[in-house]
């Protein structure tokens, strides 16, 4: 019986290398990947052009949307006006300030809550009560409390990004294997050394997933806040276009938000990859 099975395996063996070839087949060159990505966007644009130019009305009134040509024209006007760049800069300053503050405070609070029982008891109840409140619901409070509009919007962006970062950091710190900390302690490392050499680097992968989520939520909130109470910024401008019935302007504003959001999310993603090169999964990605 045993001999038979063994012989069978030996005979089947030559068929095996197929798996290896299949794996190699999955490697496809970087230029092709970029081509596919660009193709995906181009297809979406073509579809848009088709439904708007052919005046399609399937219950949803695509005929009311401006065509690509109209959008291109509007974008041209935007690009030629200084106002467009001012709005973009204003929104970027707001989001980056809020996000940077949220990163520092969120990571610090997350580590504190995960590492100290006293601080957890002190801070955790506050966080849990404030966390369910949507950041955008803080607009009235922000208007009341902050002397300038600017500070209010930054505050709302901060609050939006703070909680995802806090929660991810707390979990990531809790998931750091204890053997790393034990090792540093048996070398004579104290609390600060453990924090700097083990806890912070060890929790980075989780922290970065919080930063990614935080960046996304920040955009939602900065745009909404600008629409409600802004006097500048890409969100304010988009809403302004709507009130003056400039639909191409609305869509150009939306597309701008999309591209800016994509760029900032990409930056966070890139930083995360650089900071977590040591993860086994990253090494596997590089081989692919």
């Amino acid at each position, binding site marked *: 019986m045993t001999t038979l099975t063994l012989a069978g395996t030996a005979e089947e063996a030559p068929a095996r290398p197929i798996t290896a070839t299949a794996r190699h087949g999955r490697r496809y060159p970087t230029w092709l990947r970029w081509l596919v990505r660009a193709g995906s966007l181009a297809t979406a644009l073509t579809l848009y052009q088709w439904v708007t130019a052919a005046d399609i009305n399937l219950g949803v009134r695509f005929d009311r949307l401006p065509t690509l040509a109209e959008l291109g024209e509007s974008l041209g006007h935007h690009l030629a006006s200084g106002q467009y760049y001012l709005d973009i800069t204003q929104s970027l300053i707001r989001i980056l300030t809020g996000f940077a503050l949220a990163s520092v405070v969120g990571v610090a609070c997350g580590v504190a809550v995960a590492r100290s029982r006293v601080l957890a008891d002190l801070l955790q109840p506050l966080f849990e009560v404030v966390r369910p409140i949507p950041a955008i619901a803080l607009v009235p409070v922000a208007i009341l409390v902050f002397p300038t509009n600017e500070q209010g919007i930054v505050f709302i962006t901060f609050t939006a990004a703070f909680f995802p970062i806090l929660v991810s950091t707390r979990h990531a710190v809790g998931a750091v294997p204890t*053997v790393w900390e*034990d090792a540093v*302690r*048996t070398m*004579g490392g104290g609390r600060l050394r453990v924090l700097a050499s*083990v806890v912070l*680097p060890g929790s980075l992968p989780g922290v970065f997933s919080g930063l990614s989520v935080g960046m996304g939520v920040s955009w939602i909130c900065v745009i909404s806040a600008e629409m409600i109470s802004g006097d500048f910024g890409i969100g304010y401008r988009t809403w302004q276009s709507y009130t003056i019935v400039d639909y191409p302007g609305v869509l150009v504003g939306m597309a701008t938000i999309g591209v800016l959001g994509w760029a900032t999310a990409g930056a966070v993603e890139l930083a995360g990859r650089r900071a977590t*090169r*040591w993860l086994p999964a990253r090494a596997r990605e590089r081989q692919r």
Partner: protein
Amino acid sequence: MIALRAEGLSLGYDGAPVVSGVDLAIEPGELFAVAGASGCGKSTLLRAFAGLLPPRAGTLLAGDEPVRGTSPDRALVFQDDALLPWRTARRNVELPLAIRGVPRSERRARAAEWLARVGLAGQERRLPGQLSGGMRQRVQLARTLAGAPRAVLMDEPFGALDAQTRAAMQRLLIEVRDASPATVVFVTHDVDEALLLGDRVAVLAPDGVRDLVDVPHPRDVDARGAPEVAAARTRILTALEPVLEAEPCAPRP
């Protein structure tokens, strides 16, 4: 060098104690081997000596001081992977030197030197994830010895090595100990390794030290075939046996 003593020591985690009634007196500068069945609390005992696990009962002394916490004087080579995966091999070895306040340039040279001594010259810039299990174990050994501790606690340090590398590491350990004397406590499943390296071998069981054997002709390769060594070997094996068969080393309810 530092003496390590346990009297009526009882150790455990959340539930029932893992080991109790441990009495040991390890001399300064001694090479002390600990054997015992899997799950009998050998790693637990080393963790207690390292100051990572407070005793449930009994006393634990390092020199004349009770062990109250970790100290750079009592370094532990962990059984499982304890290298920091985001630091290269060299930066891992530099860590205890950094903790001791060695200046940066000197750290680098000393770490490279230690890596060369464990046979890993040229691998300094690799991350632990890019090294084999045996290589990682050797980096851990280099990291521990680089800190020049007065007591080295080693949990199956040569477990994942081939016979040649293993012999080389054993020689390195003896060499390092002769150059800068330290008390060494090491856990091993290999009776021959215990007999080759150790001055004494303790066989651990859940109810304390089952047997304590003086090794004849320690660290003398030529005396390995001697009848008194064979007798010591048989004695250790018999002490190990009932632990394996009659008392499975699961935590008692």
